[in-house]
């Protein structure tokens, strides 16, 4: 599907984006990528500014002219929370084919992301292009560690539903291994055991949200002494680490326990970093445990005080950039996560470009003493 010239920056730009999605995802060196992405982002963002006037005002206030951008770091990032505050759309309502929303923390407004046909298709193909490089092409049985209700059809879709739908091109068939229960989804052990009994000998895919995998699946499976002995399994998991970090669960611990339960090598337990505000743009663990930016995307880690990009070996707030969105201004998003920029172009896995590790969800840590009136506000609201 090619975008009409009016949709995002002209046909030349669209073709280049399509080429990036079709081509190898991790072959470009960072210097070359910086030049290419800066030019493409300038075009896409300039066009987005015209079609989404609030974004235009944002760029005008906080950025230099797109034509002057020398690198992706020059694109002023939108803080991810803006999608909770405002509905930002670059397309007329009749062109919106789906609205995505984040799961949202209790009491918080969820993010709302509008997708037009172009963006939705492109996101799907981009996800396939990235995953293909990690798990190989072709369909295989997919076990989803979630309830079927999470992908219910309709104009609105949650983050989990969007991710599960995105895996459809790899699935034959899709089996939902959990059932909705009063306290959340619970494993449907007969379905799960049947799935492994039937498909365990060959290549298969298991997908779940990180917290669900840990707290609902692995813990219960270990309690039942389940060992599925399915060496061809690839477990993909994504989602917040906040709750797990609170329980001092490390990625290494989760990987080891998942590999033991599934009976697959630990290198086939893959953490995917992504968000509903940029569906299709995922950063998947490589064999060295690092996350890489695909060809049509990039990552920048910024210092909290100056917002300047950090160098290799430094920690910063994770910003994700992507050329995929054309229906909303999601090209450069500053997340609420902190990470470590491990290196550039020299990952032992051979993939080029920047690679990083997720660190933690940023939480307000310091109480603010007698100037802290949040508790009073909450009390007054009650």
């Amino acid at each position, binding site marked *: 599907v090619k975008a009409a010239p009016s949709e995002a920056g002209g046909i030349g730009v669209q073709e280049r984006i399509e080429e990036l999605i079709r081509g190898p995802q991790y072959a470009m060196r960072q210097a070359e990528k910086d030049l290419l992405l800066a030019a493409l982002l300038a075009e896409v963002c300039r066009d987005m500014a015209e079609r989404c006037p*609030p*974004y235009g*005002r*944002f760029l*005008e*206030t*906080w950025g230099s002219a797109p034509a002057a951008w020398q690198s992706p770091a020059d694109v002023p990032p*939108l*803080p991810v*929370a*803006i999608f909770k*505050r*405002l509905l*930002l759309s670059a397309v007329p309502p009749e062109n919106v084919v789906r609205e995505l929303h984040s799961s949202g923390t209790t009491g918080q407004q969820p993010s709302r992301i509008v997708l037009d046909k172009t963006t939705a298709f492109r996101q799907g193909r981009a996800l396939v292009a990235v995953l293909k490089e990690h798990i190989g092409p072709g369909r295989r049985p997919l076990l989803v560690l979630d309830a079927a209700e999470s992908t219910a059809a309709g104009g609105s879709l949650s983050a989990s539903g969007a991710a599960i739908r995105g895996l459809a091109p790899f699935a034959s068939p899709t089996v939902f291994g959990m059932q909705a229960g009063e306290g959340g989804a619970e494993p449907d052990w007969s379905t799960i055991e049947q799935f492994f009994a039937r498909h365990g000998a060959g290549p298969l895919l298991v997908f779940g949200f990180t917290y669900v995998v840990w707290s609902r699946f692995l813990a219960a499976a270990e309690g039942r002494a389940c060992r599925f002995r399915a060496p061809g399994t690839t477990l993909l998991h994504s989602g917040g680490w906040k709750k797990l970090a609170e329980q001092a669960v490390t990625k290494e611990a989760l990987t080891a326990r998942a590999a033991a339960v599934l009976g697959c090598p630990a290198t086939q337990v893959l953490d995917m970093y992504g968000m509903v505000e940029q569906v299709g743009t995922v950063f998947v663990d490589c064999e060295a445990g690092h996350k890489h930016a695909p060809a049509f995307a990039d990552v920048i880690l910024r210092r*909290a*005080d*100056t*917002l*300047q990009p950090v160098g290799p070996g430094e920690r910063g*707030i994770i910003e994700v950039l992507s050329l995929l969105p054309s229906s909303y201004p999601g090209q450069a998003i*500053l997340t*609420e996560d*902190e990470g470590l920029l491990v290196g550039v172009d020299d990952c032992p896995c051979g993939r080029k470009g920047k690679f990083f590790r997720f660190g933690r969800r*940023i*939480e*307000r*840590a*310091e*109480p*603010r*003493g*007698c*100037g*802290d*009136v*949040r*508790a*009073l*506000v909450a*009390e007054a609201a009650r």
Partner: protein
Amino acid sequence: LNVHLLYDGDGPRIGPGAAAQSGPVLESLPRLVARLRRAQQALARLPLDDVLGLLDAAARAWVQPGHPLAEYLRRERLGFLPLWLRRANLETVLARSLRGHPEALDGFVYLAASDAMLLRAQPRGLVVHWLAGNVPLLGMLSLTQSLAAKNANLLKVARNSAGMLPHLLAALAEVAYCNRRGESLSGRVLTEAVAVLYADRNDVEAARELSLAADVRVAWGSLEAVQTIANLPRRHGTEDVIFGPKTSLAVVAAERLAGAEAARRVAAALAADASAFDQQGCNSPHTVFVERGGAVDPAAFAQLLAEALDAEQRRAPLAHVDPAATMQVLALRAEYAMRGRAYGSHGMGWSVLWADEDQGLAEPCCQRTLFVRGVPDVFAVVPLCSEQTQTVGLAVDDRRLALAEALAARGVQRCPAIGAMRLYGAPWDGLFLTDRLVRWVSAG
């Protein structure tokens, strides 16, 4: 008890920038308390004039170029401290606090010629201060008022500024002062009556023991913190002074916006108030209400305010940036850029946010973030205030007192001029601290 000793009569136990937990674990709280109470007996015999003389000598010495503390005060933005410690300031604070008769701290006095009763302000004994981390300076302000009332003091400091008080107390111990009788005095007579401790805020047992040792409990902090302290067991007769959470705002009247220069002066004063203590204080403004109808409208005032905050930032940059606050500020900046106007530094130095349709109080964001909101009349802010409003800074001419009356009736505790919001003084939060640190004893 897992309590770390950071300072006692033997001097500081940690460096100015050291971690709170690096102080030695306190061996015996009862022994420390006994030592403090003995030191308090000596302090109680010292005339008030000598106490003030020592503090004044410290204030003068610490601003001398080349004094080891001068650079520290500048770096830590404690410039207000030497001003606070000056005799003239403390005499004013004490006179206000003690019914115009600070000499009652030295002996019985008549409060008025027509009053036959003699009164004396007797130290209460041991004051335990729980200090908040948002404005480390408050520790010294709380302490000096207590020392002037000749009390012994145990201060439980916040983790993020644990080394500051020990460092200042070490300097105070070194101060020499020759009193009016020609006697030479050392600051140690004051610092012997002070100890600084750190305990984790979740250490209930430590908090309980400190509470039981106190004759007065002074608590600064968030709602959760002060409620926790208030609920600790205490001895019968122990006095409580609670400085809980409050918020502050500013009001600019149209008559003060008659021209760009006048408006610029108000903006500069307001920027200084917002930048002090990095907007962490309960006296820090967050929302600025600008009366419409002046030559400079609220939107234009927002721009002037941005320029003034930028100047403050160049003079004294924001000291600490919390990544979570960064995210909050950036989201607000983005939102206001989209639906109003947003101004800000390149990094996280400051922000000014304006939207024509916004009304009411904004939720404080800190990090030197000011929300500018237009009002048809300065009195429109009155319904927005309550007992939780500590300071309303005013740039108002003829209607100033009438507005202050209306604000006072709503529960507001301070109505200083914009530019003086950041200055600590007495009363504070509606009470005179020194008054609460003494027992009034009558005779005759």
